[in-house]
């Protein structure tokens, strides 16, 4: 008797849990689904007084106009280039810094690491003015270097890598040293391959963050040709007024590369986060 009651209670909790997950998933995906639905209908339907979940008249006109007008291809290129550069440079700097903090012994190491982590406490917004002035003095306004450089230092990524490197037995490094490897070679040939999944995870997260970054490009870029997707979409809005179908089409096209990248590398991201947490997948 008690056993069946317990089983019913367990089933009830399971059903409630699944229902909650379905509800949350629906809430989470609704904006995306609505954007798709809006982008696939004619402009007049987007402001119709009668509400429809799905388009009454399916069309790709919004995508066609968006791709033909404005500067979307250029913005896509800028976003891709900046995100790739930010990811590559961030990974390089963070890996070397994390290796030094984790495996090398030098005077002031702990203090230097503490200073690097103090950057956690500073919101990026607080650095906007000094960064802008610096980029201006260097002549890097409206340039790729100006877009990339302030984004390549990430205390979070350094911290994650350092924590992971701390878990790798020192014997591997010492064996490599005995084999004749210098610090960079040890990092490249031993630590990097061992850390493959976590590097992929951090790279994807960094790429997505750089792709979606609006604030810094908004500050540093004034030229239409140098805009990235998030910034360019606001220009689209101003140019088109309240053309919601084209606005949604622009947003979807802007998010498509990142979505594809995440879909391709989702397994590596998950494995990377599991590796960082120490859990077995």
């Amino acid at each position, binding site marked *: 008797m008690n056993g069946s009651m317990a089983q019913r209670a367990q089933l009830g909790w399971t059903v409630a849990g699944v229902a909650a997950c379905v509800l949350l998933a629906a809430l989470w995906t609704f904006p995306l689904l609505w954007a798709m639905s809006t982008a696939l209908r004619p402009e007049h339907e987007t402001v119709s007084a009668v509400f429809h979940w799905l388009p009454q008249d399916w069309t790709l006109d919004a995508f066609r106009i968006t791709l033909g007008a404005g500067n979307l291809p250029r913005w896509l290129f800028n976003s891709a280039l900046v995100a790739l550069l930010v990811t590559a440079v961030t990974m390089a700097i963070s890996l070397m810094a994390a290796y030094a903090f984790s495996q090398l012994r030098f005077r002031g190491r702990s203090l230097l690491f503490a200073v690097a982590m103090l950057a956690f406490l500073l919101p990026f917004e607080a650095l906007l003015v000094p960064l802008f002035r610096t980029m201006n003095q260097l002549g890097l306004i409206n340039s790729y270097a100006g877009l990339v450089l302030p984004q390549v230092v990430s205390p979070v990524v350094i911290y994650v890598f350092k924590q992971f490197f701390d878990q790798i037995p020192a014997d591997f490094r*010492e064996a490599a040293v005995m084999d004749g*490897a210098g610090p960079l070679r040890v990092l490249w040939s031993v630590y990097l391959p*061992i850390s493959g999944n976590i590097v992929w995870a951090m790279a994807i997260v960094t790429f997505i963050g750089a792709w979606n970054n609006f604030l810094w490009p908004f500050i540093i870029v004034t030229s239409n040709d140098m805009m990235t997707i998030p910034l360019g979409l606001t220009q689209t809005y101003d140019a088109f007024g309240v053309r919601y179908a084209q606005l949604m089409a622009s947003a979807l096209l802007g998010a498509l590369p990142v979505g594809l990248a995440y879909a391709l590398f989702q397994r590596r991201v998950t494995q990377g986060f599991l590796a960082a947490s120490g859990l077995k997948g």
Partner: protein
Amino acid sequence: MASVSLRGIKKQYDNNQVIKGIDLSIADGEFVVFVGPSGCGKSTLLRIIAGLEDISEGTLEIGGQVSNTVEPSRRGIAMVFQSYALYPHMSVAENMGFALKLAKVPKAEIAGRVGRAAQILQIEHLLERKPKALSGGQRQRVAIGRAIVRKPQVFLFDEPLSNLDAALRGQTRVELARLHRELQATMIYVTHDQVEAMTLGQKIVVLNGGRIEQVGTPVDLYERPANKFVAGFLGSPRMNFFEATLVGEAGGSAGVMLAGGARVQVAADVARAQLGARVTLGVRPEHLQIMRPGVTETRQDGGVKATVALVEYLGDVTLVYAHVEGAAGAESEMVAVKCDADIAPPAPGSRVELVFPASRAFLFDADGLVFAPVWAEREEAPLLQAR
């Protein structure tokens, strides 16, 4: 030349001195074992030779060259780590050839040297596997192969058998000894296991608290320990120690009285001690004999009364643990007696007498230093006599 020389080697971490002055010479082709309890500094000393730790003071020479500040990879040494340290993302062949690849050795030569080392260690069939697909013994052989490929002057082993089960340890010990004979290389081996030390080492260095207690062959250390620490460290069960007082001395024979009042003779030169001095008597378990009470009254050697506490049958021997009668009839520490397994041991609770043969006992002074034994030279059994 592949000799190693350590002169006045000291190592300090902040305010903690872990190596307190080591002087040691290792000849070319010698198999030397560093043995000692945990924390004695044996691994630190090995790492100093390897170049993985700096030297605070002293001089290290490898192959006649001062190597204090020479990079590890340029010292002509190769090391086998306790954890094997095989790179998990590389195959066995890549692991073994990594050092040569870093040295820009041509690929054909790398393949040749890896193949020859794999042949010596019988791991040719494993070359394409990753370390996670290998057993513990296979990983250990790959780690040794990685060292062999580099053709070093000196091999360093840091407790390489500690992760293996007992059967595999025995088997691998034999293989290591064979390897040493085949390669004729200088090998320095660190272990806390005295069985490994005694079976592998041509020369054993016993370390304790950052200092060398004694250096010698296994026979020397076992039969002529320099102090109480070495005497107690080598041998299983360990040597039995009894606190005693020096009560007589005559022509190379010392009379001592144990806490329980028993008087025994020991063949030792105690000229440097005074009568009444506190000494420690040491007798190995295999040199003790168990007698029925009263038998020792008719023997020249003294006997000590004891009560059997525990009997352990090990198949080839039987270990009898007994409480020795201490002062005023109180029980003192437990002593171990190693008996022939064919002879029926006394039952637990039995009262017995333990006989100490004068020629097989040791005496140590208050500082733990041995009084020189006065024995006849150890006679070899007929089968072992040189032709």
